[in-house]
């Protein structure tokens, strides 16, 4: 967990200063939203929370709802 937080601090130290210096407001806003979202995702992963997989959701949807898939060999 500590290494993860340190990693995120390093990312912020690398990416934030150029955005603030160049006053790129749109880039800054997108960066902050994305950064916070990924940070919480990383926290959930570090806390061993089972994260849902979009690929498996698609797989189950195709297999059980649409019923178009290649059967297992």
């Amino acid at each position: 967990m500590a290494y993860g937080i340190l990693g995120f601090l390093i990312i912020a130290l690398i990416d934030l200063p150029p955005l603030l210096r160049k006053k790129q407001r749109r880039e800054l806003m997108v960066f902050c939203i994305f950064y916070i979202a990924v940070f919480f995702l990383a926290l959930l992963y570090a806390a061993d929370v089972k994260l849902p997989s979009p690929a498996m959701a698609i797989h189950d949807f195709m297999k059980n709802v649409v019923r178009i898939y290649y059967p297992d060999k």
Partner: protein
Amino acid sequence: MRIDTGKITASQFMFSVACFIQASTLLTAFLSPITRQDSLIVTIAGSLIFIPLIWAYTRLMQRFPDSNLAEINEIVFGRVIGKTITIFYLVFFVTLTSLNLRDVDDFLKDTILIKTPTVVILALFAAVCAWAVHYGIRVVTRYSSLFVLIALAILTISMLFAVSLMKMENFLPMLDLEPMRYLQGTNIIMTIPFGELVVFLMIGPNIRKQKKSIYRYWMGGFAIGAVTLLTVVFRDTAVLGNTQSLFSLPSFETYRMISISPALSRMEILFAVVLIILYFFKVSFLYYVSVLTAAHLFGLKTYQSMVLTAGVFFVIYSITIFTSTMDDAGFGQGTAPIIWTLFEYTLPLTTLLMAAIRKLPRETRTS
């Protein structure tokens, strides 16, 4: 507005296409349990059937020489539908990046770095890729020709040393499986190694003007990649025969069997080296295309600020995407070949058809 103004030559583009396909040689493992000794037949069939798709991708690039796929979607389908389609493409690109990153981890964990934690392997690999992506398309594609040559050299060496292990009866019995298996195998070959070439539509405007001859470069890259893939499938079938369906990494087993002399064995290290090099290229390219698409979607002037955070996201996504290798194989063999057709065939062909019907792009025609 061009986010990355870097330009690459048409030959760099050609070698990038070839390198991208060569990196997928590991993915023949999806094919071998389905078509076994007939894998070569479906690989040939898939390569030939895919040629019209190469033509369609070329036509899209020629029609819209100054637009990438995200911009083409907006020109052809309008702002709202175009952006919606681009969101789906973004999910597709991000998933491809994470799946390929996961393949690197699966390979390294199975063969070389058995006790190293997954997150360490993925974080380090993603960090190296992020470094290349930060500097743009020129750096991502700069060494593609060298990578292709290294891959071809190692493949040639492996073919020479594996000749004594090859048995032509390993290809028998031919055409003895249920027809559905051939359909599935051809679909896998067309969607997983070849269809993923749709990502190159995102870098169309970055290729130095070669509007008329771009088809030659597309086909050149495709031919190099397809011949490599065919050679790998031929070699693995000739050496392993039906047993290749038992291995998760048939090519790795082939290299393992090669022993030139008691002092010169363990050739699998060559396979490991070339695979890591090729995967570095493929993951970097997919990573670049993903952040470029996201930057385009959010209307950003640069994508560099998203690179590192996106890397963390790819690492988490690739770890959590499947809970087991069985899930991975089930998705790769059962669902991906069907879902991917939407992004690789249906949408590009529909876009081309719509552009032809609406006589787009209008500005180019009138000027």
